[in-house]
């Protein structure tokens, strides 16, 4: 194994053996590739080291990318990526044990959101990057950074040491290198979401009929609740469903510490979601072709310091995830572009000091990345604290309201409303309601304040 990787690497190096490497990028995901392409376009030599054999085969997400970042990276050929379905419909369902209340938005215009499969999509990114002069070394695991006098000067793989004035850390949510360099303190379960999903094969015609979409179009669903009953504590867990050309994905992301504390098995939660009477008809007859999992870092409070002398941290490695909007690849690609631009400035100056590379931080601060993370800085915490309200109590009350509203019987409607209001306040401690009001208002204020 190691021999093959070494041979391949040597082959890559031979092509331009006279020139040394300007930048090493660790990880061939969207953030790593975006930074590598930016650097190659600036005429510098960049090598991407990737632990997988097939690009994208270690990567997993819910199902959709956002076109604005793909257009920013590939203004001329963004159309050629292996897209699946244009997601024209998004719905938000609140589930109880056996019912649901849904809000749906649909448009007949092309949207910014398109479903893809990561192995195909990431491989396309790699091929495009190769065309622009980026070198790739697959099957190459970076085990550590080489740090000298508080300055990153290279990386250690399983077989050798490779040196370059700048290393871009794009290894994903595990952040081994960021941890080693002290850019991240520790990975805490409370800050992580564990995602699990299944991909099911389902005929195109069935998808169009079932989800009421045209050929080429698709939908995404967010599913709140339905995972805890009675007195059970609800975990912070959010279900999702995406449609593809001939497939659908169904999964959920759950707070890792909640799973640990409540002793929940994520794959059993997934089965519970799949069996829900409002969800099961969507996946009926689908053949499960794959099960996949991933950890998702996140939130402003868990960010790594994005730079140090000789190194920049991008994408998941840094913690750039907007869980509220399911945005990951978007932030990954833009952070990669910013890191690439910063690396070019440093290379042209021949100065790889912390001060020069702090330009990256400025770019992040000025962009939507840091602004959005600040906007939602407390929302995950709030959702976790109020999980029983968000994922259990309010979905149940919504369902009760519609049950009463739609049942035409001999009970006078006025009594029904009064009964609903009475139970809304009497079914739970008043202090819980006050906590909800306070927490929701606080989060809402943080989102909209000037």
């Amino acid at each position, binding site marked *: *194994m*190691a021999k*093959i*990787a070494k041979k391949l690497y040597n082959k890559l190096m031979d092509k331009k053996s006279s020139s040394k490497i300007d930048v090493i990028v660790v990880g061939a995901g969207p953030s790593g590739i975006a930074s590598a392409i930016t650097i190659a376009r600036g005429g510098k030599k960049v090598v991407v080291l990737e*632990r*997988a*054999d097939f690009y*994208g*085969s*270690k*990567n*997993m*997400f819910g199902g959709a990318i956002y076109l604005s970042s793909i257009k920013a990276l590939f203004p001329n050929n963004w159309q050629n990526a292996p897209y699946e379905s244009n997601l024209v419909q998004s719905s938000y369902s609140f589930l109880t044990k056996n019912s649901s209340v849904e809000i749906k938005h649909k448009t007949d215009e092309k949207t910014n959101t398109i479903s893809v*499969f*990561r*192995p195909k999509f990431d491989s396309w990114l790699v091929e495009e990057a190769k065309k622009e002069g980026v070198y790739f070394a*697959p*099957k*190459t*695991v970076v*085990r550590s950074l080489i740090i000298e006098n508080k300055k990153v000067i290279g990386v250690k*793989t*399983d077989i050798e040491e490779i040196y370059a004035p700048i290393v871009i850390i794009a290894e994903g*949510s*595990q952040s*081994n290198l960021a941890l080693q360099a002290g850019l991240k303190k520790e990975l*805490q379960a409370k800050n*992580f979401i*564990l995602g*699990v999903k*299944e*991909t*099911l094969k389902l005929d195109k015609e069935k998808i169009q009929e079932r989800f009421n979409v045209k050929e080429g179009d698709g939908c995404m669903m967010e599913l709140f609740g339905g995972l805890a009953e009675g007195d059970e504590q609800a975990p912070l867990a959010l279900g999702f469903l995406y449609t593809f050309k001939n*497939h659908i*994905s169904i999964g959920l992301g759950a707070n*890792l*510490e909640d*799973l*640990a504390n409540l*002793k*929940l*098995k*994520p*794959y059993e939660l997934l*089965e*519970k979601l*799949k*069996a829900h009477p409002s969800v*099961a008809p969507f*996946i*009926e007859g*689908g053949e*499960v*072709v*794959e*099960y*996949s*999992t*991933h*950890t998702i870092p996140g939130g402003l409070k868990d960010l790594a310091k994005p730079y140090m002398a000789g190194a920049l941290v991008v994408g998941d490695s840094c913690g750039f995830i907007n869980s509220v909007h399911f945005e990951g690849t978007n932030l990954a690609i833009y952070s990669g572009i910013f890191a690439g631009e910063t690396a070019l400035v440093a290379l042209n100056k021949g100065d790889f000091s912390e001060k020069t590379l702090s330009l990256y931080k400025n770019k992040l601060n000025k962009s939507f990345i840091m602004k959005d993370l600040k906007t939602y800085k407390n929302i995950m915490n709030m959702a976790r604290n109020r999980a029983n309200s968000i994922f259990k109590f309010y979905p149940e009350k919504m369902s009760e309201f519609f049950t009463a509203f739609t049942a035409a019987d001999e009970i006078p409607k006025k009594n029904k409303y009064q009964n609903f209001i009475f139970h809304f306040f009497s079914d739970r401690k008043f202090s819980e309601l006050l906590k909800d009001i306070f927490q929701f208002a606080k989060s809402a204020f943080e989102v909209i304040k000037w």
Partner: protein
Amino acid sequence: MVENNKNFKTIEEKLSLLKYKPETISHIEVNEELCLKCKSKECTFFCPASVYKIEEGEIPKIEYENCLECGACKIGCKSKSVKWNFPHGGCGIVYKFS
């Protein structure tokens, strides 16, 4: 009730669908001393590939061949006894529809 659903898959069935490039050496190490102190063994619940199996004795059996490389064990282990690293280059899980 859940088991009656036609789409129901046990974790073993889910894992059997997957393609791996086998790794011959475990990429997961457990500090036995620290692991022994942990009574709750949350890893046997939250690991999405059910890699950690309770057997006779106090230290879970580790089926590293089934690992999906999410790293949740490293982060979620309360006794900080799991040392998890990437498998060797090219080895481990190979997703196609992720």
